[in-house]
């Protein structure tokens, strides 16, 4: 009877809204409003029930949250403040060592090389920038592109991305920066990009032909008999340059013969190179055998990585050579700096500058040779590197450099790096994919290089691949760090773990005999994890309203409903 009365009264009353009920049970209403609610619930059964339900909901929430279903993790069992403080010292030390490493690297290697190359006539550029950046890929930039400037550009780009990321999404920020670089590229003079390409079994520039601009020649037999008023890019098995090239020659060939005149430089990768003609500027080359015959004249310097060099002709300036055997019968206008096995100087040779020779055997100098000064010979020492203190100093510097490299990468790509570290735990997949990528990518890149369109892509891919070899070690370092210090998804703790892990990884690679193999395995592992992450990133995500997968649903456990477990 009472329920019926309540029900009739409820129909006549305006019910309280849920917000008011919640604020009432939470004691957040003022006194007057609370009294009003209280009076209403005396009359209204529905609102009374709602208040009760909300209170029960509150109690359920509190009970669910207070239950101790998880024990305190072991790593929290003791306050790790001291470890954290010590990490600050590690960071300071790492940065200090990295700064020292960069300085030592610059003063120990880069600066002397740069000086050497400058003396050899390469005017302020370093070897890497000469090989990769100068002229060949960014025509019109040769005056500005040095490795240092590229690094500066990359850094600037990184700062721009970081700056824009706070304002727009990461993808948009990257797009803006890339668009900026593309725009800068597009602003280069259009004429500088003009070039011609010829392909075939036997291709070339005919004797009476003149090419205005650059030319790319691809073929089994390639001949340049005419005149090219620009640069020549040669890709072939048997390549002859008998004509006149007013720019530079870039050659990838099995046999290269230069019998004509080149007003610029020669940069080449060959099996055998023979020069009988005249090169006005410098020659930089990687080969098996090089012959500068007696008629050959190189106005600038010669920088060469070769098995065997016979120099009978005339070299205007310095010679920098890494070789097994160098036989000199001609004239060198500058000095010689050689590292190799054997230096033979014949009686008709002439060298106007100093000769620094570091090798296994003492130089053989014939009696009649005209040398400005005696050969400065240093025997190559083959002491085990483990016996030298500076080896360990460098290992520490390298470890610190790795940490800094990782710091930059993990900061730039926190999510990707975290995923890569996670994927490294898929051991089989990572290792298998790592083997595939380690061997497959360079092969694919070399194939890409064979075409004009793929040249830039191929070289860039090789660079990315090479950088990934280092990144791979950082990823494994991150995983090792997580094993020791626990998992994390935060960027800075992950970087901390990476720093600890990379030190251990580097130490493991120092073990005599097996260290190299360990390093190789770690690289494969990390490279696979990175590749797996990339692969996952490129997988299309399934939309929320996508049709269900064609698999039968898994059977529900007993006493289960769609909404949850049935009460017992």
């Amino acid at each position, binding site marked *: 009877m009472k329920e019926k009365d309540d029900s009739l009264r409820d129909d006549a009353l305006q019910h309280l809204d849920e917000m008011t009920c919640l604020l009432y049970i939470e004691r957040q209403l003022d006194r007057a409003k609370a009294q009003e609610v209280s009076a209403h619930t005396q009359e209204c059964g529905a609102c009374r029930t709602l208040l009760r339900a909300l209170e*029960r909901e509150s109690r359920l929430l509190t009970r669910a949250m207070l239950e*101790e279903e998880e024990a305190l993790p072991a790593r929290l069992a003791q306050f790790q403040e001291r470890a954290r403080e010590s990490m600050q010292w590690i960071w300071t030390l790492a940065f200090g060592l990295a700064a020292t490493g960069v300085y030592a690297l610059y003063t120990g290697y880069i600066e002397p090389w740069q000086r050497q190359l400058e003396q050899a006539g390469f005017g302020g550029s370093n070897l890497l920038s000469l090989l990769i950046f100068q002229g060949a890929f960014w025509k019109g930039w040769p005056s500005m592109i040095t490795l240092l400037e590229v690094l500066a550009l990359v850094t600037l780009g990184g700062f721009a991305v970081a700056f824009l990321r706070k304002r727009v999404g990461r993808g948009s920020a990257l797009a803006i920066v890339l668009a900026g670089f593309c725009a800068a590229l597009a602003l280069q003079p259009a004429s500088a990009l003009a070039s011609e390409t010829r392909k075939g079994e036997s291709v070339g520039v005919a004797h009476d032909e003149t090419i205005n601009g650059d030319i790319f020649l691809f073929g089994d037999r390639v001949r340049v008999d005419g005149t090219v008023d620009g640069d020549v890019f040669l890709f072939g098995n048997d390549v002859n340059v008998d004509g006149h090239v007013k720019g530079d020659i870039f050659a990838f060939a099995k046999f290269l013969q230069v019998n004509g005149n080149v007003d610029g430089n020669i940069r080449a990768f060959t099996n055998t190179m023979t020069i009988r003609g005249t090169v006005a500027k410098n020659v930089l080359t990687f080969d098996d055998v090089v012959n500068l015959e007696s008629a050959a004249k190189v106005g600038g310097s010669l920088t060469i990585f070769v098995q065997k060099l016979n120099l009978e002709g005339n070299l205007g300036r310095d010679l920098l050579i890494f070789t097994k055997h160098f036989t000199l019968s001609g004239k060198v206008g500058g000095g010689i700096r050689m590292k190799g096995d054997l230096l033979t100087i014949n009686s008709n040779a002439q060298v106007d500058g100093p000769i620094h020779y570091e090798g296994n055997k003492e130089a053989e100098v014939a009696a009649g040779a005209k040398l400005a000064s005696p050969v400065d010979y240093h025997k190559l020492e083959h002491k085990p590197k483990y016996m030298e203190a500076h080896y360990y100093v460098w290992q520490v510097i390298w470890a610190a450099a790795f940490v800094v490299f990782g710091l930059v990468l993990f900061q730039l790509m926190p999510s990707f790096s975290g995923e890569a570290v996670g994927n490294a735990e898929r051991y089989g997949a990572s290792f298998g994919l790592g083997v595939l990528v380690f061997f497959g990518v360079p092969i694919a890149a070399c194939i890409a290089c064979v075409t004009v369109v793929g040249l830039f892509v191929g070289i860039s891919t090789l660079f990315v691949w090479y950088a990934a070899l280092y990144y791979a070690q950082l990823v494994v370092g991150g995983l090792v760090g997580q094993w020791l210090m626990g998992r994390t998804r935060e960027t800075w703790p992950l970087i901390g773990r990476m720093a600890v892990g990379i030190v251990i990884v580097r130490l493991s690679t120092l073990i005599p005999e097996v260290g190299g193999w360990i390093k190789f395995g770690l690289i494969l592992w990390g490279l696979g994890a990175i590749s797996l992450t990339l692969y996952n990133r490129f997988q299309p995500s399934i939309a929320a309203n996508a049709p269900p997968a064609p698999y039968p649903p898994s059977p529900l456990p007993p006493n289960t409903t769609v909404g949850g477990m049935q009460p017992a």
Partner: protein
Amino acid sequence: MSAPGKTEPAGAIARARTGDADAWGELYREYAPAIFRFCRRALPTREDAEDATMDVFMKLKDKLVQYDQSRSFTAWLYKVAANHCWDVLRRRKTRQDKETEDVENVPLEHPDPNQLDKLIEQRTSEEVRRALEKLGARARMALVMRYYSDMSYDEIADALGVRRAFVGVVLLRARHELRQALGQGGALAAGGAS
């Protein structure tokens, strides 16, 4: 946390303020489990909670001198933890920016109390915890602050950076989200009229 009704270790707090390492250890052992559980409820993963617990105690050491001893240490500690967890979520951009929404936008409706009663009766604590994990950052944070650490509306407003009048709305919406996550959609979760 000090269990409700349990006395706060005033002596240990005072000694910890002077840099006494033993007192620090005592405080840590006393409060670390509760703070870890708070972080565990508020943050998406166990690893996040572990890191956050460490960070909260690191902050605590720096901030202990600012603690007003006339107030509850537990409440103050939860405030530090809540601010830290919210910062973590905010940095990850998982925070839902609804600060601009007004109280007037809340549906002033009367859900079916019997349905709500039934839902509460059927659900276990374990199910509620699992449902909590599905909530948005703000909703979960609000519920944890209110029903785990018993923070006042003023403290919640301060931690979340919203107006005090908006706290009730946040809590009610959070409850709606929770009901939805518990498997009861429709009128009940949306606060539909009976």
